């Protein structure tokens, strides 16, 4: 189905050996599971607590907002992990959970109040008994503050984080980013903060409790709008997917669909002039800066739009990149599987579902060369 040859797999990182610390993941959502997945890929020994009581099912998550996470995505999130089945009514299972806490070096929690209660006092006591443990807690708004208990889904997190304000058309309401991106951010923040503190814990025996707020991840992801407001009082708005301080930048129509035209920086503007055969634009004062090019974009459109209409997206992509311009294809998910670039990098690999069905999964987004084992590819 995938068309991937068996040998098309990316070399893994060499094993951590004695450095493979234990991670305990108790998470009802994508964020905690994504963190566990990243850590497992790097050689950490990740144990995932599986129980309806904590919202973590063998093939997904209980909370309704994760109902769109399909079985292949769940398989991806949970591979390379050990499962620890937990039942609050089973004393032996509770004992195994306590043992897992005692063995853990890094604990990643993403739980509601009820889910925490289901873990029992023995669990909390076992954690409290470990001053060397690094605990990362992922919640929508953080565990402290007046809104720490606010109800949330990712739509609300994205709204409260200031992201929705910027996506969509100016004359219409906001739209939200696809998928579970704020959760992915939370998972990455858990990795950054948790592993950094793990280094300290390993050296000194001093653990830490870290409180990751998904809403703050979203605000950090955008980063600039709040500083711009603090500096000049300017509030950003939706711009319909284009830039309102630069041109051309965004998705444009071409002969067979859509293509990304991005001319962001000074040197790129000169390259774009060369591509369009408009040497005169390089010295045209109406087009001197990105903002002037936006304000006078009709001048550019006179040349650009017919040029795009006469060419296909692959032709435009190739022509732009031949001029070192950051043009892009507007890929859908299936085009990604066909990407020669991703295949050459062995980004995709085959795996099997529990029923034997062959599936395609991605690698981590990096290729490593290590000093201990030399070049790996």
């Amino acid at each position, binding site marked *: 189905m995938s068309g991937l040859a068996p040998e098309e797999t990316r070399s893994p990182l060499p094993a951590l050996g004695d450095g*493979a610390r234990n991670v305990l993941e108790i998470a009802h959502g994508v964020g905690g599971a994504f963190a566990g997945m990243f850590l497992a890929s790097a050689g950490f020994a990740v144990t995932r607590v599986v129980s309806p009581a904590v919202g973590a099912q063998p093939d997904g998550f209980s*909370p*309704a907002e994760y*109902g*769109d996470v399909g079985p292949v995505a769940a398989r991806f999130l949970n591979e390379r992990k050990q499962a620890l089945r937990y039942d609050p009514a089973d004393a032996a299972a509770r004992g195994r959970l306590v043992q897992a806490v005692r063995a853990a070096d890094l*604990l990643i929690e993403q739980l*509601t109040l009820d889910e925490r209660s289901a873990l029992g006092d023995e669990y909390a006591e076992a*954690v*409290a008994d470990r*001053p060397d*443990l690094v*605990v990362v807690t992922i919640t929508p708004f953080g*565990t402290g503050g007046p809104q720490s*208990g606010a*109800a949330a*889904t990712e*739509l*609300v997190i994205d709204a409260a984080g200031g992201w929705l304000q910027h996506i*969509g058309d100016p004359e*219409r309401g*906001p*739209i939200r*980013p696809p*998928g579970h991106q704020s959760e*992915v*951010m939370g998972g*990455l923040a858990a990795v950054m*903060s948790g592993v*950094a503190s793990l*280094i300290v814990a390993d050296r000194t025996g001093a653990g830490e*409790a*870290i*409180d*990751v707020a998904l*809403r*703050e991840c979203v605000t*950090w992801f955008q*980063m*600039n709008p709040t*500083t711009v407001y*603090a500096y*000049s009082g300017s509030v950003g708005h939706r711009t319909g997917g*284009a830039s309102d301080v630069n041109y051309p930048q*965004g*998705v444009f129509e071409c002969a067979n669909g859509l293509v990304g035209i991005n001319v962001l920086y000074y040197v790129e503007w000169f390259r774009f002039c060369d591509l369009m055969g408009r040497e005169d634009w390089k010295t045209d004062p109406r087009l001197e800066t*990105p903002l002037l090019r936006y304000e006078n974009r009709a001048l550019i459109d006179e040349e650009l739009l017919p040029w795009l209409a006469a060419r296909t997206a692959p032709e435009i992509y190739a022509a732009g*990149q031949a001029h070192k*311009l950051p043009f892009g294809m507007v890929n859908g*998910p*299936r085009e990604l*599987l066909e990407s*020669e670039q*991703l295949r*050459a990098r062995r980004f995709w690999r085959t795996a099997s579902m529990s029923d034997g069905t062959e*599936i*395609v999964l991605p690698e*981590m*987004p*990096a290729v490593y060369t290590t*000093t201990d084992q030399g070049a790996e590819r």
Partner: protein
Amino acid sequence: MTPTPATPNLQPSALAVGPLAGIRVVDLTMAWAGPMVTRVLAQLGADVVKIEAAGKMDRWRGGTFVQRGTERYPDHEPTDQPWNRNAYFNTQNVNKRSLVLDLKSPEGHEIVLDLVRQADVVTENFAFGAMRRLGLAYDQIAPLRTGLVMLSMPGFGSSGPERGYIAHGPTIEQLAGNAYLQGYTDGPPQASGRLAWGDPVAGMTGAALLIMALWRRHATGFGCHIDLAQLEAGVLFNFDSVLGAVNGGQVPPRRGTGHATLAPHGTYRCAGDDRYLALACRGAADWRAIREVVAADALQAADLESDDARHAAAELIDKEISEWARPRDAFEAARELQRRGVPASVVLNAADLLADEQLADRGYFLDVSHPQAGRHQYAGLPWQYASDPAWWREVRPAPCFGEHNGQVLAELGLPPARIAQLAADGVIADHPARQGD
């Protein structure tokens, strides 16, 4: 409600310094993705020396003359040194030091090699091939320092037929599928506008990979080169949508603000200028609360208890909620729904965020005084420590251009006369050549 976290009984001095204190970073990145990585390292205590060139300073300094309007400058005043007053640069580069160095000169090359000899980490986000031309590719510099960790962040990675292609954040968003998946239900793919989506995606991913590599170095003593392809990081951010589609499932439709299984799930116009309420219904309990608040006859009469029924009637429900929300204050509407346990929030803008009581209570924004930009609040990192260490709050401003030239070179053992000669020869500088961004 959010639970109090399970907390180990920590010693008060658990983190007297940042967890990465002692880590030295040679930072050759610019703009967003790379500097976001090194900002994380810097705020966790690493010593980050940011290297720019007089003729090619970090693009986020915004050039030597105004490029994209004045909103990025304090009080809309670029002054005669706009490169030290740009909001974008000053947000991204807190806690770093600045060295302006001509890497193409023999003297500059030797200096950067000396820095590498003392470094633990080198970061770069040049286009593929640039580091080798500078003599700074991993195989060229790894022998200088045992256990060196290096992060490279070319758009497409350092291998494959498109490795030489150029990409910025918007390119990555288009190529990785985010623009395709994002949009109104009745509309075409939509990019993220001013938000160069691919940049923070790669920045967050790169920071996580790099810190994991530092763990590996800590545990094994071995360094590594991380060849992070920004395109691949972008694909992972939408792993759920992509994996369904490439494994025989449907390509998810563009949903606007909708959700595959939940309804209602959207944004609703309220009173005021561009004010919207975001609201999500997770199930029957939320629905009953929403119905009580909205109190529309059409919603009372209909049998909408099940998720499937509400999904089928989403248009009717959205119409009724829209009519209810339109005259209301968005903040009051959100509070009313939250009081009943329904996920709801105003669609906040930058001004709202800076005034937000939750963010203020958590100390999310960093209060930083910059010598040329003044005192402002900057977005912090998205976590807090139970030990509330002082170093987490004590943040230095982003460096002015070449601010630490003398300091960094003196630490390498260069005497003042030699440093003065390097300045006279243009190998180091504290003023950029005229340039755009």
